[in-house]
């Protein structure tokens, strides 16, 4: 996967994890949802590791530093060029 594909995949998985986490806060006994949550976290971990190996740290004080201190490198998420194109119709 290239950078855009990795970032899009990670964003999708994280979005699912956030929403499932919020659901589980009020439905903590839903075993099916817990299993799905863990499946998504596992998948997101793999993608996050691949992204960081190639494109630098995603987190402050949680990621390993590679190639010096590349945390400060451009672009940042608020720059348009950081973000992936979402094709028409995808939501």
């Amino acid at each position, binding site marked *: 996967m290239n950078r855009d594909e990795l*970032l*899009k995949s*990670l*964003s999708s998985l*994280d*979005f699912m994890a*956030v929403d499932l*986490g*919020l659901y589980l*806060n*009020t439905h*903590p006994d839903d075993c099916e949802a817990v299993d799905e949550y863990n499946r998504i976290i596992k998948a997101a971990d793999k993608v996050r590791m691949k992204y960081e190996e190639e494109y*630098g*740290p*995603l*987190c*402050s*004080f*949680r990621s390993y530093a590679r190639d010096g201190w590349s*945390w400060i490198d451009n672009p*940042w*998420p*608020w720059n*348009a060029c*950081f*973000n*992936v*194109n*979402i094709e028409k119709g995808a939501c």
Partner: protein
Amino acid sequence: MWIYEKKLEYPIKITKPDARMAKIIIEQYGGGDGELGATLRYLSQKFSMVTPQAKATLNDIATEEMAHLEMVGTMVHQLTRGLTEEQIKAAGLDPYYVAHGLGVYPSAASGVPFTAAYIQSKGDPITDLYEDMAADGAIA
């Protein structure tokens, strides 16, 4: 505590600046029912919650609202990037520009700066949850 992750919750890639749109979007950044208000509302109210479900929900929604705040700020930033003097004047963005340049400042669309007076935290979980529904129910 919090950990910053160097990505947006949802990608924002605006290629064409639009001063008029920025003037409206800023409401969701620093307006009465905007993301900053939502973040502070939930962060403050979580301390009064009684049930495990409500504590977790307010804590985690406060966190998510922070991610929304960054996305709305990103939209304003990208919508105003590279605007010319003519474009700023034509859209009526000049009163904002004279005070903040093209910086992203937490204010309402009307220009009123963000204030904690927009939110409440009463120490009573039911009262606070009703306040949340009024503020965030329609535009969560």
